[in-house]
């Protein structure tokens, strides 16, 4: 094998995917993909299987990135371990009281989420800090031996520690951790400050508990993977995809695995940001449509937005559980290719969130599915080629599709074609609303953004969504169906630190702010250097979280990486006022407070380098497969040119109406769109104004 070989593997609930990127000396990228079954509980076996299937020699791999849903699955399937919790006296019930809210508020039969640790395993120690980190009551460890003995007797397998105000002063948590390790060597244990340095005791406690709950499961998995790959000759431990769009070392992830919780979508969004950097496009709406959901996120000035306000199982029916870790800011809706179209008791058409999944899948799979899905509607309207379904691997069962769509239509008094158009329009509308949530709702006009669409279904809907939002260019990246894996290859080693720190922007405040930033950066450097990353390779970005005095919620403002001085404070305040007004339409003549800081620490670990290829002839007729009528819903039926995506080459151009068929995805090009293939093989679609 020549060139550079990079491998990304992704363990999902059903399948383990592999994508290998090989760049030859000319800069030509070739992609190999393979899929095999996920193999619980020994997930590493599936990874090794898929390597074999793709004929990848681990010893030849220069960079190995790994993403896994093991954490989110252990949480949602309740397959973690029994956790004991140690809290401040008076607060053992914080985990069960939670926030007391009832989002399904007319419903008197609301079900409150059950705590992950039952009351008898929640114990207290005497100790107390103030909100300023002062010790109000010293830590009394005398009860700890009996707590440990009871935990052991009750079969506790991991311990979480969460004290009030540990974000401001973690010494009591540290002392308990140390004593616990002495009393109970080897027990998996985590203290809340190790994961989160922000206030809100329920969220921090929940985070520590959920991390402890999955830690033994995740560690066993990661160690097994590491061992298996090393035995096969992999030279460097895999990097593990995180929820903050970075990768982290396997060792660090094994200690605090909860940071992987939302790693699935993160790599695609990072890929979109990296693609933007390569193409010189800083402002991007990224859209990832898979089988069951659509996810979107905003890239502003080349940056993804990372937040710590993440919850699992939260919706309009349930309060869910918070996890206070850095997660890319995304909106996810239950609208993918497999989402089921249904008519409610009052004659209203809906699409999703229920999905036909992989089994039985859309009706067209011919596996017994009787419910119409978005994919069935796309097939019925000729947008997906019924002769080339799933890259030609599946014979589309059009009779099943027709029956399913007809049933939906009958309930609405519509013929099948009208019903299929309705399904597409409803699905598109759901996605438009999600895209508005990440753009308009945050004060950004989508017309100023480029839509990057990926995942198996992104390109099918992207142009229609862009039209609705006024977006002028859609990019379907090269290898769109495996774009998330590509994003993994482009990731840096990255850690996001969020710390609650209250202060003003009055003269004299700069020193304290600078000290706080320096403290975070020093500890980040120490952490990296303990893992063998050179000091000079670590790059920092600083952000402050500000608000008007008396407010609660904050606006994050980027700061310069130079030391903060009093001379900077005025500009910082003015940046805040501007950012605030953009989001909320007004500014106040009120004092500005600092509530916290956010530091991104990054170190490059050798990312994929793309090389632009020269543009060839514009004539795309060599890729033209033929023509067929395609129903564009709102724009009616048009005779579309059908292109073979694998034969498109840099420089080619064509105009819509057209369809591009690729083994992994179908691109729907609307009438009037102008399409070109850029030097990286991306499909660039220009919309009419």
């Amino acid at each position, binding site marked *: 094998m020549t060139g550079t070989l990079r491998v990304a593997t992704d363990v999902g609930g059903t399948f383990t995917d592999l994508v290998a990127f090989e760049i030859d000396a000319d800069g030509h990228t070739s992609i190999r993909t393979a899929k095999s079954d996920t193999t619980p509980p020994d997930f590493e076996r599936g990874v090794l299987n898929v390597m074999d299937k793709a004929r990848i020699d681990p010893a030849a791999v220069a960079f190995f990135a790994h993403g896994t849903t093991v954490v989110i699955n252990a949480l949602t399937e309740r397959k973690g371990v029994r956790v004991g919790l140690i809290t401040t006296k*008076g607060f053992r*019930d914080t985990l069960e009281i939670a926030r007391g*809210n009832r989002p399904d508020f007319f419903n008197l*039969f609301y079900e409150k989420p059950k705590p992950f640790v039952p009351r008898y395993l929640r114990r207290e120690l005497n100790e107390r800090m103030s909100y300023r980190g002062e010790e109000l009551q010293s830590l009394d460890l005398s009860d700890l031996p009996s707590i440990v003995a009871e935990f052991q007797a009750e079969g506790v397998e991991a311990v979480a520690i969460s004290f009030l105000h540990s974000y401001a002063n973690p010494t009591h948590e540290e002392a308990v951790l140390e004593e616990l390790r002495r009393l109970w060597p080897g027990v998996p244990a985590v203290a809340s400050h190790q994961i989160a340095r922000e*206030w809100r005791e329920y969220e921090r406690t929940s985070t520590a508990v959920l991390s402890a709950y999955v830690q033994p499961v995740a560690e066993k998995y990661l160690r097994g993977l590491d061992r298996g790959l090393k035995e096969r000759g992999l030279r460097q431990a895999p990097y593990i995809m995180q929820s903050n769009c970075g990768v982290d070392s396997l060792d660090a992830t094994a200690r605090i695995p909860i940071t992987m919780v939302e790693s699935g979508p993160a790599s695609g969004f990072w890929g979109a940001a990296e693609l933007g950097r390569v193409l010189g496009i800083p402002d991007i709406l990224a859209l990832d449509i898979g089988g069951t959901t659509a996810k979107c996120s905003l890239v502003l000035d080349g940056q993804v937005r990372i937040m710590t306000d993440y919850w699992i199982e939260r919706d309009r029916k349930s309060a869910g559980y918070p996890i206070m870790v850095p997660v890319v800011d995304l909106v996810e809706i239950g609208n993918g290719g497999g989402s089921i179209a249904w008519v409610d*008791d009052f004659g209203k058409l809906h699409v999703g969130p229920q999905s036909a999944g992989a089994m039985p899948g859309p009706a067209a799979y011919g596996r017994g599915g009787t419910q119409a899905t978005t994919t069935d509607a796309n097939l019925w309207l000729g947008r997906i080629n019924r002769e080339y379904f799933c890259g030609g691997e599946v014979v589309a069962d059009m009779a099943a599709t027709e029956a399913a769509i007809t049933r939906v239509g009958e309930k609405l008094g519509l013929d099948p074609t009208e019903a299929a158009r309705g399904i597409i329009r409803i699905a598109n509308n759901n996605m438009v609303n999600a895209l508005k949530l990440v753009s308009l709702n945050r004060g950004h006009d989508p017309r100023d953004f480029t839509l990057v669409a990926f995942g198996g279904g992104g390109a099918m809907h992207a142009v229609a969504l862009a039209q609705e939002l006024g977006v002028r260019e859609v990019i379907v990246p090269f290898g769109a169906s495996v774009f998330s894996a590509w994003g993994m290859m482009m990731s840096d080693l990255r850690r996001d630190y969020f710390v609650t720190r209250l202060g003003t922007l009055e003269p004299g405040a700069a020193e304290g702010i600078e000290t706080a930033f320096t403290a975070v950066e020093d500890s980040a450097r120490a952490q990296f250097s303990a893992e063998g990353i050179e000091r000079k390779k670590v790059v920092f970005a600083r952000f402050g979280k500000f608000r008007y005095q008396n407010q*609660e919620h904050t606006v994050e403002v980027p700061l310069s990486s130079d030391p903060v001085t009093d001379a900077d404070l005025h500009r910082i305040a003015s940046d805040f006022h501007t950012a605030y007004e953009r989001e909320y339409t007004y500014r*106040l003549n009120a004092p500005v407070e600092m509530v916290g800081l956010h530091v991104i620490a990054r170190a490059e670990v050798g990312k994929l380098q793309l090389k632009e290829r020269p543009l060839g002839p514009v004539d795309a007729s060599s890729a033209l497969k033929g023509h067929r009528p395609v129903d564009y819903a709102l724009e009616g039926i048009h005779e579309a040119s059908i292109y073979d995506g694998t034969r498109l080459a840099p420089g080619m151009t064509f105009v819509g109406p057209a369809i591009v068929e690729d083994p992994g995805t179908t691109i729907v090009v609307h009438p009037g769109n102008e399409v070109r293939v850029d030097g990286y093989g991306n499909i660039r679609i220009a919309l009419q104004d």
Partner: protein
Amino acid sequence: MTDHVTLAVVQAALEAAADEMFAVIRRTAMSPIIYEVLDMGTGITDAEGRLVSSGAGIPTFVGVLDKAVARLIEIHGDTIREGDAFVTNDPSYGGVTHLSDVVVALPVFHEGQLLAWAASIAHWNDVGGMVPGSMSATAQEIWQEGLRLPAVRLFENGAPIEPVMAIVAANSRQPDVAQGDLWAQVAAARRAEQRLKGLAERYGEGAFRAAIADALSMGEARARTGLATLPHGRHEIAEEQDDGSVWRAVITVEADQFVVDLTENPGQRDAPMNLSRDGSVIAAQMIFKALCDPSRFANSGSFAPLEVITRPGTIFHARDPAPQGYYFETRIRLYDMLWRCLAQALPEKLPAGHFGTIGGTVIAGLHPDTGRRFTMVEPQMGGWGATPTRDGLSAMFSASHGDTFNCPAEIAEARYGVLVEQRSLAEQAGGDGLHPGGRGLSVAYRMRGDAVLSVGLSRTRMPVWGLAGGRNGGCNRLVIQRAGSAGENEAHGMASGVGLSPGDRVLIETAGGGGWGRGT
């Protein structure tokens, strides 16, 4: 005739606009009771003031804004212009609840025609009056409860009317907070205005109006479908309250009507427990919705089969100048009584009683570390009743609340300069039964500085009710343990202006829920 899908698309956008308003207020408001407790609601109404969509945090605010807008239209009629915005908080002028809840409503125009309204209501920390936090337990007239804003114009030609803004600020003990909250509500309305105009431009005014009409008829269809599942009957209840007075209701369920008759009830009083007629209607809407269509889908159509009969001058139909500062305790007790009335008739369809109080607790003073004035306004969590199939929930906000969040102890300590000594489930379990009720809450504040306390608790004497043979739950209580006075407890149910000194401990214990079914 607008097609199905376009209707659905416009309806989804109307829902999204109300949700978006909600998010804006939550992120920008300055009163903790707004951004944390979410004691606020947002809504879109049609040009006539019928509720189309709502982005509420609490269910009791879903049915408020239509009533407010309808009254604004009645008062201002032909003078309403594009670029206007109105403010009201007065139950006699469309305020519906009490003076602390401020409504901001903005008419949305399209091509010169009034198209819709974007409105919000939010509980401000302080609107003046006798006591910090504006809710005095001893107020005898509404003037003692703060600034009255009788449905006045706040914006003209898109610009604030500065004198009105100045009056609002000058009448609050926390003028900066009042202004911050006011702007938060304006920003939310503007956001919705943009969205609604965009919708009308994109789909046309005809489709816009058709989508609203369709949504209202769907709300009604959902309500009638639910109503059809209820057995017909006439149910009566008479219930003694903590103060010894007896309240009565007659609920008649028929095929096409659900009638709540509150005629036979005590007269209004010169105490802040009175409820406006609109407030009573909301209590009835809550139980109607819980029985007939407990989903979050709600608009004016959702309540079409409901009729509420009240008699002017009673506690459930108070007239000016009755004080209403603690109206919410009366409303939740009314809701709870209607719930009990129907639960006794239909024990499989409703849970046993819950702790049944908002438990509004106000502590105001100067922050011992910063010297800044603070006002903590918090409702309490408590035990919920058991159901035919499971135990009651522990430590939840009341049924009048919804997506209401408690204030983290860590934030309360920083923001208010009090020490939260404990916040745990109450030791006292809920009412026993086949399924026992959930546990209440036990929370203790230790004062670090001087402050003033107000509190309103219901069910301090009459316990939470069990159902179908289940035992009653407990009672709610607040006690002050004064610094240095060993064991001397000072209990309060409804009180305001109670002085607190450093070292004093305020302990609040809320009731467990009622049990369901006879225990074995």
